């Protein structure tokens, strides 16, 4: 987990420095006493740089963190990828036309049997469509 923490801290430092630089270009305050739009983002960004530095230092000299378990991560990332594809296609396809087969495929690929997958493919999108589409009148794309 040490390298994961260090990597994350480095990303946070880059993001924080970017936000500080962007905030530096915001206009100065015109109201007497007002802190302006840049002050707090710069303070928070600076704090994040310091904390991220602390995380990196602690990763090297602090107590050893438990190892990161990567088991099962491909399945999680596959679900995330499938979700992204569904979001993209949702703008082009009817809700039920998309999500019934998507649910069937997703549940089946994650390990359920055919019976469970078919029931889930009917119940889950059906319930979501009934609640949001019909009862709450949400206009789906």
């Amino acid at each position, binding site marked *: *987990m040490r390298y*994961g*923490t260090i990597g*994350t801290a480095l990303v*946070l430092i880059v993001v924080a420095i970017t*936000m500080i630089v962007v905030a530096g270009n*915001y*206009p100065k*305050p015109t*109201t*007497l*006493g*007002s*802190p*302006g*739009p840049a002050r*707090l*983002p710069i303070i*928070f*960004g600076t704090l*994040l740089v310091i*904390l*991220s530095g602390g*995380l990196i230092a*602690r990763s090297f000299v602090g107590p050893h963190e438990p190892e*990161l*378990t990567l*088991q*099962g*991560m491909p*399945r*999680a*990332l*596959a*679900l*995330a990828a499938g*979700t992204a594809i*569904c*979001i993209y296609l*949702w703008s082009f396809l009817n809700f039920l036309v998309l*999500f019934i087969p998507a*649910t069937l495929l*997703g*549940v*089946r690929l*994650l*390990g*359920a049997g055919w019976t*469970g997958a078919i029931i*889930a493919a009917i119940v*889950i999108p059906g319930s*979501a469509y009934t*609640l*949001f589409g019909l*009862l*709450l*009148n*949400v206009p*789906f*794309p």
Partner: protein
Amino acid sequence: MQNLLLGIEAVFTWQGLLAIFVGTALGIVVGALPGLGPSLGVALLIPATFSLSPSVGFNLLVSLYIAAEYGGSISAILIGTPGTAAATATVVDGYPMNRQGRGALALQTSLSASTFGGVVGAIALIVFSQPLVVFVLQFGPPEYFALGLFGLTLIASLSGDTILKGLAAGIIGLLLAVVGVDPISGTPRYTGSFFELYEGIPFLAVLIGVFALAEAFTLAERDDTRKEARISDSGEKLGLRGAASMLPTFLRGSAIGTVIGAIPGAGANIAGWLAYDQERRWSDKPETFGKGQIKGVAAPEAANSASVGGALMPLLTLGLPGSPTTAVLIGALIIHGLQPGPRLFAENPDVVYGLFVGMLVAFPMLFVLGTAAMPLWRKVLALPNSVLAVGIVMLSLVGTYALRNLMFDVWLALLFGIGGYFLKKLRFPMAPLVLAMVLGAIVESNYARSLIMSQGSHGIFFERPLSIALILVAAAALVWPLVSLVMRRWRAAGAA
């Protein structure tokens, strides 16, 4: 009295009672399934409240919260795995009771204790919140800034053992809160070419991303096997006499739960363990605890349900969350255009008093529903991870879209879901991120107003006694976990 009548009117309609019933039923299921929990349940249910009145919607969410704290005991007793963090202490004696053939008795005890503790917590909330509101009405922008600062220091206590990571998550939340148009100067900040960000990052997208989607991805990691849940029944019943004999246990647990729940950042888990520990100390037979002692189930369950009323106290009166779930509830209030704190009592008494009456209805409803549906819990626990994961994803996408009917929000939720998944794997806690996002806006707006009042002088924060007191408490709250950690390591090194 008039406000109480408003509350009764808000609850005793078919929509109000149905909302409490649905929230309670869903809450038991969400609490019973390990890995879900009240925060996820409330976050997913928020979109369903958009077309409801704020009072009915809030009761739906709070009923789910209440029922989920009880629901965690079901899997704790039946399969030895707590459904929620609050039920961790219940496993110690609840699971052995099931293995000894007294599972049904353990479930009855848990339900009775939860109902009793919850009602006590609700009464404490009703009695103590009004005097607290009168006190808070004296606050001006400097005091609200100091209060927000104090709220941010709770990040340290919400972070557990990973304080640095919790603080980092909190700062991320503060940076997310500044995205959008600056409320004082009108300058767009970090919006790029996305007009969808002018109002800021939609809080619901963050909530659903880090709590629901991240959890769904985590569930997807595991193989599709669930433990076989069996409710053993020796025929022994709790009965009225049994419940009466445990009244001192119920009362002790409820008192501990209410007080601990009211301490922002403490939470139901701590309340449960403290109540369990105290019950063992008060017992004539402490050696029986851990081996199927019925009071070892009653005490933590009374405490974790009472903590709900306690946790709602700082939320309603100060606008500070008493637990991670109440941080999500603050988001729900803000999404409905309501500001938690004393203004809520003045401007929306129907919401506040509707909640008070709703809680007094929800706990007895929990008892009835929990008793009637007890034979079903085995089947609930048999739901495979694959169905849960895909179901949560579906509800998350649709729920996020329902807020502003923008696909942009759905993509944002996925982004936060993937980010939240990786941060959770690296043990970055998400509750501080959510808390900081909620409080960031309060801190910034009151900071700006205070400085405008004082024409730029920071002395205004140190000229007012309430503000000074809150800043000192905030400093102490921030420093104490670090001091405590250092002292523990020093003692451990000394002992070695």
